């Protein structure tokens, strides 16, 4: 990203602002004193070895877990910057299924396995009041095509899909309401390398084309290299280094990041 773009960005309104965010599990630290700001359309990657607190941070950011302290503010459509943990539960649930998307590492956590692909994609639309079958189905077909799934499979259940197809379906199911922010935890985890590469291409295309902001957790540096504008490196629950992706990966400053990049660490 150029310096000019950086300056333009600084003048824009933030989409998400995270301040002093800490989550402990009793004595165990999940993540500690996390601070960052995300702008509309920006993709941030969170990397670190297993157990470094990536999923904990993502779960708190996406309101799936309550923080121990600190705040997560989001630019709500009709209210502006608001701490998501001061919203009522129904408001938060509505935010999570309209203006946000959450792509789980395990598709079983993000899909309804007993419901057809079309029903999975249509659920969010019906949740916000869509009551025209033809329109819901048309949106389903449209989104299956956008994530490059065979549209003739619209009435098949996800349990008959491969892992890569399930991940695509999960993405379609989330994007159908045009969210402005998507959270992804290891979106390519558990997939074959060639399937991973195609999914990454697809994600990159969608995120760019739709201007969606995203926070992507991964232990795979190739994923962030391809998708993320900025990077946060986590170790033992803390961010040890942050910056533009290429800068961090090509010129890591923190010794831990240097180890990560040189692949000395088994991540």
């Amino acid at each position, binding site marked *: 990203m150029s310096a000019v773009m950086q300056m333009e960005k600084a003048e824009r309104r933030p989409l998400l602002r995270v301040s002093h965010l800490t989550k402990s599990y009793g004595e165990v630290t999940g993540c500690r004193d996390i601070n960052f700001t995300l702008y509309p359309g920006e993709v941030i990657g969170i990397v670190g070895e297993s157990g470094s607190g990536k999923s904990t941070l993502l779960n708190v950011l996406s309101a799936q877990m309550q923080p121990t302290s600190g705040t997560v503010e989001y630019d709500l459509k009709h209210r502006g910057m608001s701490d998501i943990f001061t919203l009522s539960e*129904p408001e938060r649930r509505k935010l999570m299924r309209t203006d946000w998307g959450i792509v789980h590492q395990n598709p079983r956590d993000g899909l309804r396995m007993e*419901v057809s692909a079309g*029903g999975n994609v249509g659920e969010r639309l019906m949740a916000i009041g869509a009551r025209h*079958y033809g329109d*819901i189905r048309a949106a389903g077909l449209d989104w299956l095509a956008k994530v490059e799934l065979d549209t003739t499979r619209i009435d098949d259940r996800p349990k008959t899909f491969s892992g890569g197809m399930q991940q695509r379906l999960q993405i379609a199911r989330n994007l159908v309401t045009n969210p402005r922010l998507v959270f992804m935890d290891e979106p390519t985890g558990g997939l074959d390398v060639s399937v991973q590469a195609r999914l990454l291409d697809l994600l990159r295309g969608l995120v760019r084309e739709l201007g969606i902001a995203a926070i992507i957790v991964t232990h795979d540096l190739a994923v962030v290299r391809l998708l993320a504008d900025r990077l946060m490196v986590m170790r033992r629950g803390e961010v040890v280094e942050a910056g533009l992706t290429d800068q961090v990966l090509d010129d890591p400053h923190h010794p831990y990041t240097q180890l990560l990049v040189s692949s000395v660490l088994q991540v």
Partner: protein
Amino acid sequence: MSAVSAVQWDEAYNFAYLDEQTKRMIRRTILKAIAIPGYQVPFGGREMPLAYGWGTGGVQVTASVIGPDDTLKVIDQGADDTTNAVSIRRFFERVAGVETTETTEDADIIQTRHRIPEFPLREGQVLVYQVPQPEPLRKLEPRETETRKMHGYAEYGLMSVRLYEDIARYGHIATTYSYPVMVNGRYLMSPSPIPKFDNPKMENNPAIQLFGAGREKRIYAIPPYTQVKSLDFDDHPFKVQTWKECCALCGAKSSYLDEVILDDRGGRMFVCSDTNFCEDRRAKGHTGPLGADPAALAFAHKEPAQ
């Protein structure tokens, strides 16, 4: 027809079997259910001398609202004379000494398994439904914590997903019984396994409708004159079942019909599921194509399929 029996209350039992404290607790539950139409109110259900699936929820509700001067009617899929209906009627004759009837109009309380009578109900009557599964979202969402939130926040998109699945698979909404409704524009409710044919009767009904689920220990209600809307899609509107045939015995064209197999050569007929309605019409001189056929009349009184 209306077999009014002068029976004696067996005073070894407290009136209507349940103890007074339990009845008061269930009545409080019912009052709360009436105050929040369609909302499932948990209650401390009691063991009843009936197996679950035989209407223990309905029996507890009936036992709590019935008085010595009330007349009780019990139907099982429209029929007054099935084993289930007869045994519940006998139960209340014995433990409460109340009069029973098969005539809808004469009943103060009608306990039902899976039908609403064809004759319109009136103010002052109470219709008690036996409910096997009170939670309309259960098949799609097994977690009780989650369905409770869905009701709390009126998040009912998932129910439409079920109807969507029907249309995707069958080309139309194939759900024909337990067809989900919105009560008073607020709570999603399962009407118990009545045919969707009966759904429109729930709306604006002058009677009080009480639903008792014994196994799940829930009571819910539709107070008189309440809005009850069957879910649907704009381009797949709710429709009730219709038949090309009329009732073979009484000739009725607008009642809910059961198919009855007459012989092993493919002979069959359609007859009113509501036996009281059908008999009443025949007594008034109406007749259908097989109305004078003795074999058909004999078959008409067989137990409907469970």
